[in-house]
């Protein structure tokens, strides 16, 4: 191709490129502290969801 000519290709028309191979990596290694933090976070979320549910049911008059 002559100089000063550029080819612009739409991503959907381009050839697929090699991405990070997630399957071969498997699950992420996590330290105990990270695992405990995530479990705490999960417990917090479950507690919050139950609290929101309780609050909303209360507003809906279910506990009268």
């Amino acid at each position, binding site marked *: 191709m002559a100089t000063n000519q*550029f080819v612009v*290709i*739409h991503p959907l028309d381009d*050839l697929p490129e090699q*991405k990070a191979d*997630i399957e071969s990596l498997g*699950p992420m290694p996590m330290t105990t502290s990270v695992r405990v933090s995530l479990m705490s976070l999960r417990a917090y*979320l479950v507690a919050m969801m139950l609290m929101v549910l309780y*609050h909303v049911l209360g507003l809906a008059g279910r506990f009268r």
Partner: protein
Amino acid sequence: MNNKILTMPAPGVETEVMPARGRVVKSKWTRDLLTFLMVLGPGLIVMVADNDAGAVSTYSQAGAQYGTHLLWVVLLLLPVTYFIQEMVVRLGIATGKGHAAMIYQRFGKWWGLFSLIDLELVNFLTLVTEFAAIDLALTKMGVDPRIGVPLVAAGLVLLVLSGSYRRWERTVVFLCLLDLVWFAIAFAVRPPLAQIVRGSVMPVMPAGGLTPDLIFLVIAIVGTTVAPWQLFFQQSCIADKRLRFADVKWARLDTFFGACITITVAGCMMLAGNASLAHGFKFTDPAQMAMDIGSFTNGFFRNAILLMMINAAVLGTTAISLSSAWAYGEVRGWPHSLQLPVKKAPGFYVVYLVSVAAAAGLVLIPRAPLQLIILSVQVLAGVMLPSAIIFLQLLLNDKELLGEYANKPWNNAVNWTIIIVLFALSLILAAQVAAPNLFPAS
């Protein structure tokens, strides 16, 4: 520009891969502009769709109650929303996978399932609020919602059925650009420029001081500007569009461009609310605000606000439903792409269809508890956001996965600051839900 189409052979690739087609241009400037326009989409859409029906309500309420005093909060959220979504850009381009797939594969099925349930629950409730807004706006425009809501829902389903990502993206980008009508609305009802600038850069306590209403409106503004579905949507969108490593800088620009538009439009919504406040109207909902503004401007602005409410809800609905469908497809291992026709990805399209139809149907049920659903959405989204960002933060520090695209120390410093602030706001919200009288009204 030379519009010659160049077709390049693709030696050594699988037979199902289409040969690369490109446009030949003669200057670097044109090349950069064209590349940006081709990459433009996921960032703009995720940001503008974030200004959904709930956002229209929250921003206009903020303007209607506090005038221009909270403009600075919105401006402060520009870097926050950009930094979070920029991480999604890197993750999506480096892996070519959606966010749900990443959590499933890197954290295991247990965490993947929890994240999926959280997402689908909040998404569905948010979709109900989108259709509730469409119902409200149609009613004010004199259209029977029993006809209008199903028609809008049918249009939203048709939007994705073409089997072409590009067709869907072009239509949605057009709808995003329609949001610029808010500039005209804000210009027509604007306060003096000095007041806007002061409100944008000088945090001043509004009259009445720090009340529970003010605290929760600020939390609602944060919650509506940064939402969990955005992480899932943009990453899946990037994967579906097959953005390449070379596109990272353009995808960042797309995201920044979208963030600037969404924040500016949010400011315009506040100015509309401010105008109704200045004329002595009490805010009830954005549709009523449109009627109030119409009473001192003209019918054009009334209808423009109502149509922009519907446009916001439509954008929110297509983006949120797609984030649900992509996430479900990724986790179940189903084909999940807008590039596929319905018969090749039936599960993906069924999830989209069910999301839209169920939310639209619920809104049409007489005496459905819409107000309770809207309340639940605001609280749940606020509570879930920090934990969703923590998964993102952990993934972005996965050097084994991302290599040079992993977070730098300064990224982590910024993102942990954002997470801590969001957690603090989430805890305040939690405290208010648990003990509504904790913050006494002044």
